[in-house]
Structure formats: structure tokens, C-alpha cells
């Protein structure tokens, strides 16, 4: 099929982009273009018209520092949140990292004990146990086997969060922890998958070393837009494989490397 194109929305690129998260956008764009899919990148920040969200085929939002998160939270609740919710309910594939993932839950309880309401899209809530409790920081290795996506190799990244996220009844975790903390350091789950939206704590950024997730989002976006499954041409991901192996070898000795 010729003349394929996707509109990728990057929410608050100037505010929610502290942990190298633009790498995710770079990867999504290039992996489309390498297959002849034209990309139209929409950067949607504070001043943007909220109706642009209706035109998006794929949505991404990264993590940020506290001050920036406050500014964004206000804009989401007052302004763009309802359209974002509609898009996700309508199965637009999307990826939300760390702070963005937390925003989409029922609420976030701060270290001081204030409950900040979220967008109530993901069936999750997040609580920060207080400034004296350690942040969850370090390399993380997960196994992805959920109802939407299965990846045979380990997926690797880095996490750095104070909040602990808990899944409500009926919520499906994005992945299981092989090494690291994940949602809350208790139940071995990592992230959430809801319709075609992924919420996760993985920085790294997540997509460059784990391009299968990028391809999953692209495939879903094409399916949604063109109404049929479009096979994506295979790309050479040998460097990506080596980068994952370095992390797995360092932190999961004893596991089968070829897995």
C-alpha cells in the first residue's frame, strides 16, 4: 500500500522531556520513514489548540521534573484532558512515561500527603510515601507478555520515581519485573496497558533499545487509520540487541542470554 502517513502527537515537548525522552519520538519517526510512511509530527504544548489532539494517530508524552509537572497538570485538567481521554478510549495507540503515566491515573498523592486528581483514564493510582522513603532508581529489566503485546526478549530501561503506582481491579500490567522495582516494588508488575495505551516507568529512553514496542505502536496506528493490518518491513536491529544484552548480562547473570 502506498502513500501511508501518520500524525504523531508529542504532548508538552518543552515541559515533559527531562530524561532523554525525545529519543522515543526520534525512533518512532525514523522507523516510520524507513518504511516509507510519511510522518507529520505535531508538538502540542500549553499554547496549542486542544482540538489538534483529535487529529492524532499516535500519542507520546514523557516525564518531567516537579515544577514542569505542576504546570502541565493544570493544563491537562482545565484544558486538554478530556480530548486526550476520548482519544485513548477510542483506541489511539499511545505511550506515557513516568510522570505522564502517573497523570493518567485516578490520583497522585504527593510526598506531603496532598491528593492531586488525575485524568482517571488508567485504572491506577499513585502514592509518594514521603521524602524520607527512598526513590526507586536503577536499571530495570522487564518481560512483556500482555493481551496486546508479547516480546520474546527482555526489555531494558532505567527507572527513577518517588511515587508508587498500584493497579485497581481489572487493570492489566504492561509487564512483569525481572530486575528492578517497577510499579511499586511489591507486586512485581510494571506499567499498565489499557486499550492501545501503554503507561510505564521505563526511561532509557524505552524505544531506542526496545524497537519492538515502537513497531507495535506504529502497527496499531496504521491499523486504526487504514482499517486493516499492514505488515511492517523488518529493519536491522542488531545494535539494539547488543545494547540489551549488555544490560541483561550485567544484572541478570544466570538467565538464558538467547531468550
Amino acid at each position, binding site marked *: 500500500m502506498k502513500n501511508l502517513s501518520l500524525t504523531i502527537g508529542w504532548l508538552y515537548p518543552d515541559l515533559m*522531556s527531562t530524561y*532523554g525522552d525525545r*529519543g522515543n519520538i526520534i525512533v518512532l519517526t525514523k522507523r516510520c520513514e524507513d518504511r516509507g510512511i510519511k510522518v507529520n509530527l505535531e508538538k502540542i504544548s500549553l499554547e496549542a489548540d486542544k482540538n489538534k489532539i483529535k487529529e492524532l494517530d499516535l500519542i507520546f508524552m514523557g516525564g518531567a521534573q516537579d515544577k514542569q509537572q505542576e*504546570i502541565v497538570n493544570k493544563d491537562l485538567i482545565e484544558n486538554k484532558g478530556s480530548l486526550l481521554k476520548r482519544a485513548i478510549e477510542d483506541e489511539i495507540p499511545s505511550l506515557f512515561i513516568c510522570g505522564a503515566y502517573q497523570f493518567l491515573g485516578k490520583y497522585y498523592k504527593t510526598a506531603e500527603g496532598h491528593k492531586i486528581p488525575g485524568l482517571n483514564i488508567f485504572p491506577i493510582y499513585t502514592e509518594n510515601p514521603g521524602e524520607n522513603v527512598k526513590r526507586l532508581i536503577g536499571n530495570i529489566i522487564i518481560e512483556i507478555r500482555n493481551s496486546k503485546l508479547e516480546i520474546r526478549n527482555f526489555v531494558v530501561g532505567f527507572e527513577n520515581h518517588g511515587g508508587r503506582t498500584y493497579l485497581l481491579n481489572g487493570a492489566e500490567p504492561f509487564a512483569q519485573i525481572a530486575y528492578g522495582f517497577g510499579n511499586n516494588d511489591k507486586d512485581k508488575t510494571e506499567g499498565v496497558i489499557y486499550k492501545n495505551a501503554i503507561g510505564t516507568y521505563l526511561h532509557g529512553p524505552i524505544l*531506542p533499545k526496545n524497537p519492538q514496542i515502537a513497531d507495535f505502536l506504529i502497527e496499531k496506528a496504521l491499523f486504526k487509520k487504514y482499517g486493516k493490518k499492514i505488515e511492517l518491513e523488518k529493519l536491522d536491529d542488531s*545494535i539494539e540487541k547488543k545494547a540489551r544484552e549488555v544490560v541483561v548480562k550485567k544484572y541478570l547473570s544466570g538467565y538464558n542470554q538467547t531468550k
Partner: protein
Amino acid sequence: MINALLILLGKSLIKFGNTLNIGSGSTWPGHIALKLNKNFIKQISSKNKNLKIVLIAGTNGKTTTSKLIKHILEKNSLKVFHNEAGANLLNGIASSFIKNSNLSGKLPYDVAIFEIDENTLPLILREINHYSILLLNLFRDQLDRYGEVNTIAKNWQQALKKVDKNTFLFLNGDDPQIYSLGQENDLKTYYFGISDKYMDQKEIPHDVDSVYCPNCSHKLNYSKMSYSHLGKFKCYNCGFKQEKVETFADQKINYPLFGKYNIYNTNAAILLTSKAFNIPTEKVIEFTEEFKPAFGRQEIVKYKGKNIIVLLSKNPTGFNQSIEATINYSKDEKPNALVVLNDRIPDGRDVSWIWDVDFNDLSLAKKIIISGDRTFDLAIRFKYALNDSFEQKTIIEEDLEKAINTAVSQTEENKTLFILPTYSAMLETRKILGGKKIL
């Protein structure tokens, strides 16, 4: 009395360490002293009331600026000591006291210059008689270790409120967050910046954190920018803006180091030494022009007939500045570049930040050699930054010694190779180039 024993013990440890060549002993004598007497720093400091202590903090430029200030003060016949680069926590300061004092705890010097870690600054301000504080900048750096830029600025602000009113405070007037630290205290405050003519950044780059007003969170307006979030700013919402920034624009200065970031470092050193030590500006500038750089900070090393310049690059802003310096170094020579990414504790365990670096600007280099603990993370980054020229332009070599040899052999006689390493990679590089094996 106990301090005399601690100093004696510490000095023997340093000597022992040097003899066996097991590290420079730059932190552990102090570590032990503080374990046995937690007031060690405070007591030694109050014993040396005439010693003028200069504290330097900020994300980038601490070592270079310390060395510049030391050079200027020594040229002016003052006796100066300086803590070793990297030994910038409390234990490093204590070690530096041990190394430079006599057994009674007296420091026979006029000035001590201490580089201080971002998170240690509030702690050290409570312990010692500070004479002058210099705050260089705050950029995104090792979020897993230092935490967020806003938190650091908030802690500094709180700490500065309790500082003795006679203290000199020197602030980067082009960094909105640093500039705002001068608003809420009545110390002897001065601001440094750089001349307009160096402000050639066209748009706000990706690696910025502080382009929002420190007072009201409204987006700042910039009439000119130098790099990252540094520039001439103003808030149209609450009126927050810069005043009285010294740029030395009317002086003819032959800056001894290249790169815009070093114009900031040099101007900071000139302003501090002339104001806090009362040395005439013309004299300071003369001294400055004779300065020689240090390893990892623009020193040119001759190695197998090639010129090697190592530029420590440990966070997005620092890296972007190193890349700019590499590419602009010579008009008629395309340099080779070896980029080394480690993920050890001094580098930060999280390597996500390489995606905030604009590596595509390095595409003008002839060959790019990639190495370090996270060679393949870096290789992926370059694959996306260089696109079609990735295969032809890059060489991937995990082993640093082999990577250096490859990079050197790819470089022609008398031509220049730039090495851009993270912190621990810089130390390794130095050992390899110096012929010493890592123990």
C-alpha cells in the same frame, strides 16, 4: 588534640597511598577524620580565621574556574591550595585540610579554593568560614544522583539566607535560576555574564530546564542566548529581569581557553579575583591570558605524533558545548572524535541523557569512534543522529584501549583527535595515554 592525631593519621594514609600507588588519597583520610570527629571541618576552619575560603559550585566548569582563580591569585603572590578535582564532598574538603595543614591544624596559606558538589554546598556553608561563594550555572545532570535542578536551586537559596553578611557572592547573571539567588539576601553580590557578541544561539535548544520564570513560572522571553538556557532574559508577566551583569565587553581579552562556556568561566574568575581580592582588573586580565589548561579541560597531549585534546563531557549541556568546540576548532581540518560513555557511579548510572545531546552536530567530524561501558547505547544514538552516514563514519570498539589506538591510527600525523569522555572514562583515558595501567 584528637585533631592532631587525625591529621597525623590522615597524612600517613596519604603518604602510604602514594607509595603504593593506590589512588591519590583524595577522599578517604577525610572520611576517616569525619567518622571519628564530625566537627573536624568546623574546628579546623575556625582555627584558621585569616584563611580566605572561596567556594565554587555549579554543574559545569568548577575545575577549570578553580584553576583559573588559583592561577590569578598565585600570580598576585598569594599562597593558595585547592581540593583535588572530584573530591568535592565533605570528605574531600576534610582530606584537603589534612593534606595542607601542619599537625596543630594550622593552614599556612592565604586562600583555599574548594570545588563543591551541588548537594554538598548547603552542608559546607554551615561548617566553614566562607569568604566568597561563586555559583556558575545549573544544568540537567545525573538526575539519578543529584535530583532535579529546581530542588538544588531551592536548597541553595535556603542555605544562602543563613550566610554571614560580609560574604562575597558571585552569580551567573545569564542563568535565570542562579541570577534569582541574588534577590533574597543582602550579601556583597556581583553578577557575571558574557558579551553580546558571543550570544549566537538562534533558538532555545532541547536540553534546557530553566526557561521559566523563577518567581512566577511564566515562560521567559530571551532577547539573546549564548547556550542552553543562558542569555538575556526577561519575564513579561512579573517583570523579573537582569541588572548589573558584568561582561567585560569593553575590555580586550585574549581568552586562554576555547568555547563559550569558558568565556563564562574566565569572566567569573576575573570578576571574583578583582572584586573579592582587590586586584586591578587590567592586572587580572594580564594574568588570565597566561593560563595553561589541565588534562580533560583542553590540555593538548602529544601522543604517537598526534595531538589529542580531551574534553570532559558529562551532561547534555557540557556535551553540546564540547561538540561545538570540536567542530569549530579548526577551519581547515575536519577532526576525528572518540566518544566514550561509561555508566559508573561518578558518571551516573542512567544513560538516558545522551538523547538530549545534539550528536548530529558531530556529523562534520571525519571519523567517529564509539566506546565505553555503554558502547551500544551510544551506537544506537549515533545511528539515529547520523542516519545514512552512520555505517561509513563510525567505528564501534568496546575496549577503550583498543578504541584509543584505532582513533589515533585513524588520525594523520600532526592532526588533532578529540576525545569526549564521561568522568570515569576521562580518568581511564588519562591512564592509557600516560602509559600507566589501571590497577
